[in-house]
């Protein structure tokens, strides 16, 4: 199993997290996303015609899209069946819903980070405003979950929905987005970083 990886990518970080949580042996191939734009090179477009990372090579097949790779890894390699709770139909839809939400976080909070850190030319005010709108929704949801005794996005256990949402929320400060206003998100980040085998990525502020 091989992960095409970029060290500063939150989307690659999602995969690194789950590989570690599930203790799956794998190799990493470093991609020069910045400054080399290797993900847009002809060679890489053969691997992923969308020119995006991460990509996971497993059993000779290439799987692209961070959320899809999470589902792949969890459904194939998680003996507990909890990260992608396929045996719990009532929970599965909710998990899928928050996977889609994670994609919206990428197009807003991650965009602001690309602008501020790597100098991408985009409308950063719009990206930040979009992120704040989503973070308000997530903060309300997490606060409601806590009231019902649930620590995680989709219930009482962490799922791939938590992994998918975590990186670009926790890295929001890199893009000039303050998490100060979101106390439930801060508590969720603290719980997340205390998961067994969790590894920190630079840019993540732990509120303690």
């Amino acid at each position, binding site marked *: 199993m091989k992960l095409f990886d*970029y060290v500063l990518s939150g989307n690659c970080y999602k995969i690194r997290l789950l590989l570690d949580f599930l203790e799956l042996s794998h190799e990493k191939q470093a991609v020069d996303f910045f*400054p080399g734009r290797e993900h847009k090179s002809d060679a890489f477009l053969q691997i992923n015609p969308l020119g995006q990372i991460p990509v996971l090579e497993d059993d000779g097949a290439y799987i692209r899209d961070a959320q899809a790779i999470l589902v792949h890894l969890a459904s194939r390699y998680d003996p507990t069946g909890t990260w992608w709770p396929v045996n719990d139909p009532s929970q599965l839809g909710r998990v899928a819903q928050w996977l889609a939400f994670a994609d919206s976080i990428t197009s807003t909070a991650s965009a602001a980070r690309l602008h501020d*850190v790597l*100098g991408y030319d985009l409308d950063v005010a719009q990206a930040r405003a979009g992120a704040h709108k989503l973070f308000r929704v997530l903060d309300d949801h997490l606060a409601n979950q806590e009231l019902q005794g649930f620590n995680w996005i989709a219930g009482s256990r962490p799922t791939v929905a938590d992994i998918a949402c975590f990186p670009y929320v926790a890295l929001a400060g890199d893009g000039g987005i303050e998490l100060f206003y979101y106390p439930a998100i801060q508590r969720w980040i603290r719980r997340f970083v205390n998961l067994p085998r969790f590894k920190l990525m630079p840019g993540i502020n732990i509120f303690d």
Partner: protein
Amino acid sequence: MTPDTFTRSQWYAIGRLPDFEGAEAKPVRLLSQDLTVSDAAGVLSVNDADGRSLLTQIRYGHLWTTLSDTPRPLYDVPEFDEPDRRLVTAGGVGVRCSGLRCVENFLDMAHFPFVHTDILGVEEHPSVESYDVSMDAEKDEIWATKCKFFQPMASAAASGGQMTEYKYRVPHPYSTILYKTCPIREDVWDLVGLFIQPVEEDECIVHSFILVFDEENTDTGLLHFQQNIFLQDRMILENQVPRKLPLDPRWELPTRADASSIAYRRWLKANELQWGVALFNEAA
């Protein structure tokens, strides 16, 4: 504030050469001024907002320019001409603080165990042993030598912990170079450095490079190592208050480990540098 003479008279790196391939008036900001870079059949030119053509030179893997017509010469780094060395340029990373603060943080070994935990330092060995700081009067630059620090993973080529010896050089208010024990060759130094592009008084773009002997890692592997380290620094830098460099002694109390930082601040003051410096009464 308009840049002081010392700041204005310097050369500044504004990007790597591939960043400007085919550029047509690509916007670049330097010292609160809008500039453009154009590529005419491989020849790069830089213009200011009034269309004035600025001096340029290509060195150390980067394009350099200056607002001055009579700049101070750019410092020499002879190691760039040595054969067998690998140069990896890590690209420009934006940081919301004065570039002067980035130089000062780079000089500070005390942060290794806490910011670069288990890479450049371990929390069990937090102490900074005393080292020598001197001025090279002829070249007008600062050297900190005989710095030693225990590092679990001093570079991408390191296979285990080692007592790393360091030398720091500050040849320019916005440049600093670290010379560190090469883990795979005797009697040579690996170089890691920052060429900082001051964008505003409290905002900069850091162009970092590594120039090392390494037979094991790919260029991209070296790049990831360097970028990971720098992003750890970036978060610390962005949390510093004020964002400009406080030069007033009433502000922050230096300790012995800050000997190189004290020398840097003295040198900036002696050269009457003001742009990018926080004023004590401004913050009150």
